[in-house]
C-alpha cells in the first residue's frame, strides 16, 4: 500500500514528463509501468538500447526529481472512492499491491495496429515495434534475413537499427501511396529535426530496397516464416526471409481511460486544455490522447503533470508547442492512410483473434464486437481484443467492446487481495 498525490500510469515520455513536472511542483508523484524500467517503448532501457540524448536527459531528470518509479507493475483495476480519491490496484512479480492518489495521469501510450494476412501468425512474424523492442531487450538478429513491411514512420528507424545490429534487411515496404508519402517527406522541412532523423535512418540501410506503395500479401512457412509475398497492385514478388516485421501504424491504448469512464473519440482519450479527461482529476497525455510522437507526448505530459498538481492554465505557455505537434501528427495520419487493398489480404482461413484462434471467415461483418465475442470467442482471450480489436475496427469499422477489470490478466490471488 502506497500513497501519492499524483499517480501516473505509464513511464514513457508523457508519463516521465508528467512525473517530473508534478514532482517539481512539490507533489509526491508515483509512476507505474509494466516494463522493466522507465522509458516506455521509444526510450526503452535494455542491453540493446541506444537512447537519444533527449531521452537520456529526461530519464536523468526523472531519477533526480524525487518521483517514485514502480516498474514491472501491471495495473489491473482503478477505483474511485466516495471521497474522490483513486486507488490503483496493480500486480508486481505475482503479488498484489496498490497506490492511492488524489489525481491520475494516464500515459498509457499506444500499440501497433496489425492487419491480418495469411501466415501472419507464424513464428518469426513480429511487430515492427515488436522487433525494435526485442532488439533493445537484448535479442540478436545478427545474420538474419529481415523484411520490414507495413506502414508508418517506424519502418525507417527499425530498418536502421536492424542493419546496425547485423541483420540483413532484404526489403522495406511501405504500403502508403508514393505521392502521399512524398508529400509528407516534402513537408518535413517544417520539422527540420525530423527530416535530419529520417535522412539518418535512410542512410542506415542505404543498400536496402525501400518500396513505396507495396504491401504484404502473405507470409509463407511451415513452423516458422520462410518467405513473404508482397504486391504493388500489379506485380507480386516473394522474398525469402527469417523474420518478417509487420505493423500498420499505432493506435492509442485507452483501456484504463475507458474503465474510468473517460470519453474516447476517434479512438483517442478526449482531453481539455489542461489535458484533463472528462472525468475530474483524471488526466491523459501522450499517445493515449492521439498518436503524435515523443516530443508531443513530452509537452502533453508536462502540461498534465502541472495541472494534476492543481496548476491549471500553466499549459498556456506550452500550448503552441502542443498545437505544432498535433499538426505534424495529422500530416502523418494523412500520409500513411491505410489502403483498401489491405482489407482484402486476409482469406477466410486467416486468424484474426490470435488468443482464441478465430478465423476471419467465422466473423460476420454486420455483428458488433460483443456479438463476435459471444458467438465465436473472438477477443475473449488474455489480450482482451487488444490485437484483434484494432484489426476488426479497420476491417469492419467495429467499435471496441466495453472494458472491465482486470485491465490485464492477474493472478486469482491478486483479485482476492484487491479490495478497498
Amino acid at each position: 500500500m502506497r500513497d501519492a498525490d499524483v499517480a501516473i500510469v505509464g513511464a514513457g515520455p508523457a508519463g516521465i514528463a508528467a512525473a517530473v513536472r508534478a514532482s517539481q511542483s512539490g507533489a509526491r508523484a508515483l509512476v507505474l509501468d509494466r516494463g522493466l524500467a522507465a522509458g516506455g517503448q521509444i526510450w526503452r532501457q535494455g542491453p540493446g538500447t541506444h537512447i537519444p540524448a533527449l531521452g537520456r536527459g529526461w530519464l536523468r531528470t526523472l531519477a533526480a526529481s524525487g518521483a517514485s518509479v514502480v516498474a514491472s507493475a501491471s495495473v489491473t483495476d482503478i477505483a474511485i472512492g466516495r471521497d474522490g480519491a483513486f486507488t490503483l490496484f496493480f500486480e508486481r512479480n505475482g503479488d498484489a499491491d496498490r497506490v492511492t492518489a488524489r489525481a491520475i495521469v494516464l500515459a498509457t501510450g499506444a500499440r501497433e495496429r496489425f492487419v491480418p494476412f495469411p501466415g501472419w501468425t507464424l513464428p518469426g512474424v513480429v511487430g515492427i515495434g515488436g522487433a525494435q523492442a526485442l532488439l533493445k531487450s537484448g535479442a540478436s538478429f545478427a545474420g538474419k534475413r529481415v523484411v520490414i513491411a507495413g506502414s508508418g514512420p517506424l519502418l525507417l528507424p527499425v530498418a536502421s537499427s536492424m542493419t546496425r545490429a547485423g541483420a540483413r534487411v532484404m526489403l522495406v515496404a511501405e504500403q502508403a501511396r508514393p505521392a502521399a508519402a512524398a508529400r509528407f517527406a516534402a513537408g518535413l522541412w517544417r520539422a527540420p529535426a525530423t527530416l535530419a532523423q529520417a535522412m539518418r535512418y535512410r542512410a542506415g540501410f542505404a543498400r536496402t530496397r525501400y518500396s513505396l506503395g507495396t504491401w504484404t500479401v502473405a507470409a509463407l512457412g511451415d513452423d516458422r516464416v520462410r518467405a513473404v509475398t508482397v504486391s504493388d497492385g500489379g506485380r507480386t514478388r516473394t522474398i525469402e526471409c527469417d523474420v518478417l516485421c509487420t505493423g500498420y501504424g499505432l493506435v492509442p491504448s485507452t483501456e484504463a481511460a475507458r474503465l474510468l469512464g473517460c470519453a474516447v473519440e476517434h479512438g483517442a482519450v478526449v482531453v481539455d486544455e489542461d489535458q484533463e479527461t472528462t472525468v475530474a482529476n483524471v488526466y491523459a497525455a501522450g499517445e493515449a490522447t492521439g498518436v503524435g510522437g515523443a516530443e508531443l507526448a513530452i509537452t502533453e505530459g508536462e502540461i498534465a503533470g502541472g495541472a494534476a498538481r492543481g496548476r491549471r492554465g500553466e499549459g498556456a505557455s506550452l500550448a503552441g508547442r502542443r498545437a505544432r505537434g498535433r499538426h505534424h501528427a495529422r500530416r502523418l495520419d494523412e500520409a500513411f492512410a491505410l489502403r483498401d487493398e489491405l482489407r482484402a489480404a486476409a482469406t477466410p482461413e486467416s486468424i484474426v483473434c490470435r488468443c482464441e484462434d478465430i478465423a476471419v471467415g467465422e466473423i460476420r461483418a454486420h455483428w458488433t464486437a460483443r456479438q463476435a465475442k459471444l458467438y465465436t470467442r473472438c477477443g475473449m482471450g488474455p489480450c482482451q481484443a487488444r490485437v484483434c480489436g484494432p484489426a476488426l475496427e479497420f476491417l469492419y469499422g467495429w467499435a471496441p467492446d466495453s472494458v472491465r477489470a482486470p485491465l490485464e490478466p492477474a493472478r486469482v490471488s491478486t483479485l482476492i487481495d484487491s479490495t478497498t
Partner: protein
Amino acid sequence: MSDQQASDELMLIVNGRTTRVRPGTTVAAALVSLDALAFRMSASGEPRGPLCGMGTCHECRVAIDGVPHRRACLVAVAEGMRVTTDA
C-alpha cells in the same frame, strides 16, 4: 567479449538446456537470440512466438520457474531461471 563481461552473464535454462545471456535481457529476447521463435502452442495447436514485444499481445507466454502463462517479454532473465516453451 572480455572476461569481465562473460562473468557478468546470467545462466538461463531453456527446456533443460543451459545458455548464458547478458543481464537486462528479457526472456523473450533470449529465446529469439537462440532462434527459438516458437514459444507456445495456440488454442488450436499452432506454434506461436512474440508479436508486440511489449506485453500487449500475450503471444510470448511461456512457463517461467514453473509458473505458466508468463509474458516472456516482460520478465528479465535472472540467474538460474528455468523457462519452458511448449512449442
